[in-house]
């Protein structure tokens, strides 16, 4: 499991990283914390000809709030995101980050790394999708924003071009009375989630649901927002149970030898119930 051969260059800035990517002509991988990429290299499942190291690039580790919108830099480590004081529904990012692996993984792993790796079981893509966030990608050709739905194409597959680099995640302001919940099911502490759920619910002045996102991860090839919680509903235990049931039924679990589809649906139901109950408790 020694790493396969690759040429290596270290970037000090985003511009330098983009230059190096350009030089690599498409056969390069960015590496920051390495928590996702290095195990893949160790198993020689993937053999990029070059690695561009962006672990020390400056200016990408900020968490900036502006009129309720948050911009989270791509090099923000999970351990920092976990402890970040993000108000309202944006707290979902911190809740999700808490579930990533173990503490030593969180000190190194980055937001950009997690989004770019697009593991179907990863937590941050679920949270980002539930928050209607957009990936900010930069290349020598300029900068663009990609909605999470458009960004996640399939397992370990994103809409990033070979010469592009994630620089931030932009999270739009959530409505005033918005709350978030995140639950996941993993066999052991620190394991990849067999299923995860991120929910963001907004309420109007009468306490009825005015906006809802129920996102499921780890169950299908990419995280998906389910149409399970109707507008105008009240978040009481009966409604929650019904939503959990609908959410589970609407999932199409990928065929997996370790966990059958029926059990995955059971997990989704339990997690949706838990996450919405958490939201209900906050809203009360």
């Amino acid at each position, binding site marked *: *499991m*020694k*790493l*396969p*051969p*690759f*040429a*290596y*260059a*270290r970037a000090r800035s985003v511009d330098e990283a983009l*230059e*190096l990517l350009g*030089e690599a002509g498409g056969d390069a991988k960015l*590496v920051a*914390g*390495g*928590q996702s990429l*290095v*195990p893949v290299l*160790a*198993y020689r499942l993937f053999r990029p000809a*070059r*690695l561009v*190291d962006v*672990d*020390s690039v400056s200016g990408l580790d900020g968490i900036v709030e502006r009129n309720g919108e948050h911009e989270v830099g791509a090099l923000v480590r999970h*351990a920092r995101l976990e402890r970040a004081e993000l108000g309202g529904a944006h707290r979902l990012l911190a809740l999700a980050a808490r579930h990533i692996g*173990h*503490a*030593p*993984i969180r*000190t*190194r792993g980055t937001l950009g790394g997690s989004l770019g790796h697009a593991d179907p079981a990863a937590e941050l893509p679920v949270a980002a999708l539930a928050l209607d966030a957009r990936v900010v990608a930069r290349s020598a050709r300029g900068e663009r924003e990609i909605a999470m739905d458009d960004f996640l194409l399939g397992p370990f597959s994103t809409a990033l071009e070979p010469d592009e680099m994630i620089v931030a995640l932009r999270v739009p302001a959530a409505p005033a009375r918005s709350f978030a919940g995140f639950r996941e099911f993993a066999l052991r*502490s*620190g394991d990849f989630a067999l299923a995860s759920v991120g929910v963001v619910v907004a309420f109007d002045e009468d306490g009825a649901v005015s906006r809802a996102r129920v996102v499921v991860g780890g169950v299908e090839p990419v995280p998906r927002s389910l149409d399970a919680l109707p507008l105008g509903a009240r978040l009481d235990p009966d409604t929650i149970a019904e939503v959990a049931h609908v959410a589970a039924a609407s999932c199409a679990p990928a065929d997996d030898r370790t966990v059958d589809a029926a059990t995955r649906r059971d997990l989704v139901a339990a997690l949706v119930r838990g996450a919405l109950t958490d939201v209900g408790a906050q809203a009360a």
Partner: protein
Amino acid sequence: MTGRWHQADERVGVDVVLNGSSVTLHASPRWTLADAVRAHGLTGTHLGCEHGVCGACTVLLDGEPARSCLVLALQAEDRRVDTVEGLSDGDELHPVQAAFREQRALQCGFCTPGFVVLAAWLVDSEPDADDERVRDVLSSNLCRCTGYGSILAATLAARAGHA
């Protein structure tokens, strides 16, 4: 192509502060930090899986615990690296090491350096960590011999001693 690229098996000098001293490690780009410190003679950092699950290779990178099998050696440039060898000073053990000894928190000893580095970091940086936090952090690493009870007891004892 610019001169910034290092080739796969090119030997590169990596300046680090290793257990408090400035040294230059010599590593190839595809060496991990674990490979590099071991080649430097510090074999206390063990390779249990080389894919970031078992934690036997845990070191501190700029004072934070990291799996050295997942850090590329060249990424440690200009950083502080602390390994298990840096915890004791001659015959004087770090309180966590003394606690592991006292509580018999080891049998084969292979996972021990990773646990000791992790536990020492926790006790030193979070002396007020509650029991749940201690259990959660210790769940980062795998042990096959002890069943963990003695490892937990040792870490809690070291935390109490720190108070």
